[in-house]
């Protein structure tokens, strides 16, 4: 006991722990029927940390060239103790991370948490989503197996359809005109240096804002409290909310462990540029709704549409005036639900429709 107190005192004299302790002990988190959605941000962050740790471990053995990438992943999976586990966790956590980020974003959207004063939190968050998808896209190629090679081919092909700069973007992404070892090395650079750098920056801003401003309470709840229909409730961050946070993280970990044991992530066949592609090649699941949409509309219209939609999405707080005024905006709720339904339906069609 005495040792702990002395340790505390040592740090307190240097960085003023008492102030921090006071802040933390008084920090509260709103508690209402929608507050369960608050955990998603923390869980996303937790999964990101899992990715960073497993990613660094993989970096110890992975070789980012076309000649060695597949073999190095094979080595990790067969020769390195628990390499199969690190790899499986990295693959599953990646997908879970992106899925969770999507759900987190849509829950924020529907609760209109992006309204004043949290516009910048939303903007950094939307950009973080794009970075997360970039992580997924670049990371998927790294094992250099046939599936990944073909999916990357298909995915980068769409870049060429961007008007004016399409060819340049394609060459920039691929490191050449075709998907080759140069693409692999480039994607590796994106995946372990460029994207982590940008993400660290945006994530720090994003989390800092959340800490400064606290959690947003939905307009409907605020109205109920104002009308006296409900009491304003909150729980202390420490220890109540934190235990709940940790429970969420534990459940996420459990899900990953379950998936890794029931459906071990495969190695597949090494990428072979000469083999013809099988007919139903798709990009990763979080791109399928876009890929499927582009089968129904002219490509240029589709790409342009997604680009505009992306920009509007990032700048959403500036479009939703009603929420900024603290009023319920059913239209935007409907839009949010519609977008989610659209994404789910098109993803489902992409996988389940006959001939797909």
């Amino acid at each position, binding site marked *: 006991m005495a040792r702990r107190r002395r340790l505390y005192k040592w740090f307190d004299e240097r960085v003023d722990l008492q102030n921090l302790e006071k802040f933390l002990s008084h920090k509260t988190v709103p508690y209402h029927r929608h507050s369960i959605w608050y955990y998603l941000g923390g869980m996303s962050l937790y999964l990101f940390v899992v990715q960073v740790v497993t990613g660094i471990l993989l970096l*110890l053995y992975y070789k980012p*060239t076309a000649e060695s990438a597949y073999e*190095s992943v094979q*080595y990790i999976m067969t020769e390195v*103790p*628990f390499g199969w*586990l690190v790899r499986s966790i990295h693959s599953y956590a990646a997908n879970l991370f992106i899925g969770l980020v999507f759900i987190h974003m849509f829950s924020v959207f529907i609760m209109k948490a992006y309204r004043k004063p949290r516009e910048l939190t939303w903007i950094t968050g939307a950009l973080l989503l794009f970075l997360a998808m970039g992580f997924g896209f670049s990371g998927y190629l790294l094992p250099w197996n046939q599936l990944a090679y073909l999916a990357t081919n298909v995915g980068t092909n769409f870049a060429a359809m961007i008007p004016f700069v399409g060819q340049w973007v394609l060459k920039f992404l691929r490191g050449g005109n075709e998907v080759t070892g140069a693409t692999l090395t480039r994607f590796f650079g994106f995946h372990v240096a460029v994207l982590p750098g940008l993400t660290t920056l945006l994530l720090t801003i994003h989390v800092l804002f959340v800490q400064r401003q606290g959690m947003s309470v939905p307009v409907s709840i605020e109205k109920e409290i104002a009308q006296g229909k409900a009491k304003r409730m909150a729980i202390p961050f420490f220890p109540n909310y934190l235990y709940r946070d940790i429970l969420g993280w534990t459940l996420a970990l459990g899900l990953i462990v379950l998936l890794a044991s029931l459906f071990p992530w495969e190695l597949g066949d090494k990428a072979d540029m000469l083999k013809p592609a099988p007919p139903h090649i798709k990009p990763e699941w979080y791109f399928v709704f876009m890929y499927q949409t582009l089968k129904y509309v002219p490509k240029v219209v589709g790409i342009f549409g997604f680009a505009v939609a992306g920009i509007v999405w990032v700048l959403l707080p500036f479009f939703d005036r009603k929420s900024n005024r603290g009023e319920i905006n059913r239209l935007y709720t409907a839009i949010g639900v519609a977008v989610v339904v659209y994404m789910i339906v098109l993803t489902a069609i992409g996988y389940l429709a006959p001939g797909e």
Partner: protein
Amino acid sequence: MDKNVPRRDVINLLLGGGIAALGAATLYPIIRYMIPPPASGAGTSSVSAARVGELKPNDGKIFKFGETPAILVLKPGGDPASASSYVSFTAVCTHLNCTVQYRSDLKEIWCACHNGHYDLSGRVLSGPPPSPLTQYRVAIKGDEIFVSSERA
């Protein structure tokens, strides 16, 4: 053991114990993972083929290079301690992929399947092989003989 152990202590014990177990279950694999395994690295471009003194002059050895066989030959009259006395090639015959071997009577590399003969520069001397054997570089570090497929 006190029968009326407060429930708080039980929960704390459970929680503490569980987290400790989880921590150990996480840390143990990570530490084992980080220690390099004895097998040679992946995407092999360099392999330890033999020890100095393992081969006598005018003798050859088949070893595993990645997933394919390779051959190391100590030339007749060669000094086992000098890298230039050794030659090394892929042991996959360029005809129909049989594994070649060293013939000390002929001082040539020979393929038993269809009587293909290669000289000690990998060139085809006779028989059906259409192209020479890919040559590997030999280097000696300490008392290990390393064979590498990297170009000079």
